[in-house]
């Protein structure tokens, strides 16, 4: 759409069209929220889609890969990749389980290690912590999509980029018209 047309459209906008645009925007926001919350329920994970930030799982996952998590009840086994929280760190870690010790009552403890590290994660755990528990686990990585999450990382590291993207989205939403 060329600038002159946009300018004319803008002048022609009346109240009803403005309300319509606001409603459309509200629809987009609420359906996105519904999908996200629905995913949380279906997968059982508080964060069903995450972006991989660290390089400690290379060459399997690189920075910017999108990871899909579930958190079903079934017991954790070695070889699985867990996304888990460590006390004192706000970013969750995504590493592989290399040890499992399970009691008869079902409680279990795990040891993890990044594929790209030689040593296990005990150096990363909180002081005094030797194992990970089921309660620390945000989800288990079941699938992935490379590169797609790079946008999120760029937005976090370059705030100007984030504002530009948000501004661009805002302009698009306000001015996009259903062509009747």
């Amino acid at each position, binding site marked *: 759409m060329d600038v002159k047309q946009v300018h004319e459209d803008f002048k022609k906008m009346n109240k009803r069209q403005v309300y319509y645009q606001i409603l459309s925007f509200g629809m987009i926001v609420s359906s996105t929220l519904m999908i996200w919350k629905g995913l949380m329920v279906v997968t059982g994970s508080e964060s069903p889609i995450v972006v991989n930030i660290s390089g400690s799982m290379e*060459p*399997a996952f690189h920075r910017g890969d999108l990871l899909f998590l579930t958190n079903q009840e079934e017991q954790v*086994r*070695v*070889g*699985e*990749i867990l996304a888990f929280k460590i006390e004192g760190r706000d970013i969750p870690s995504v590493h*592989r389980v*290399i*040890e*499992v*010790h*399970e*009691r*008869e009552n079902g409680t*279990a403890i795990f040891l993890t*290690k990044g*594929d790209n590290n*030689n*040593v*296990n994660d*005990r*150096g990363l755990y909180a002081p005094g912590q030797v194992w990970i528990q089921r309660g620390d686990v945000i989800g288990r*990585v*079941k*699938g*992935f*999509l*490379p590169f797609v999450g790079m946008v999120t990382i760029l937005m976090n590291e370059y705030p100007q980029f984030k504002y530009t993207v948000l501004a661009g989205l805002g302009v698009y939403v306000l001015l*996009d018209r259903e062509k009747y």
Partner: protein
Amino acid sequence: MNCISKVQTVAFVIVALCFLQTLAEPNPVNVHINPVVANIYPQEYSEFDLGVLNLDLKTDLKPLFNWNVKQLYVYLTAEYHTKHNILNQVVLCDKIIKNRDEAKLDLKGLTVWFGDKENELRGNENIVLTLSWNLVPNIGFLPRYSGTGAKVINFPFNYKVATKLQDRRIIGKIKQYYNNGILQRLEESEGD
């Protein structure tokens, strides 16, 4: 705007096909793990007995590679029971295989080790050794499979004492690796 939605649809279909592809179960792969020599060593300055295994491992993972396989994370697991835990699993060594050419494994004299957090390896029986792999696709799910041909071993009750100088050196290195949390790579060890 129309061409953007067309590209989006095509991309979505391609991604969905990749995910579907990773649901396809591959044919079973035979793994040979034998012979295995299992020994228990005491540690002077640590509470954990060290179980050390010396084994030959042979398998061919080439058939698993297809257009949607980025790599195989291959790992050897020891699974055992103790008084405290109904299930213990320990990864003894691992390897990342990125293409078909590296996918044939024929290792002799691989040395691996582990300790039990309740120190119940001495005399522990029916420890199952399995070779497994996590298939990492270019796009898709991340399934895990195990090879057929798991091997069952027992640890003796009596400690082995390393008498020869070379054995003492090897055991010393193993203790260092174990206490530092280093995981052995699934490959021929150098200079034994």
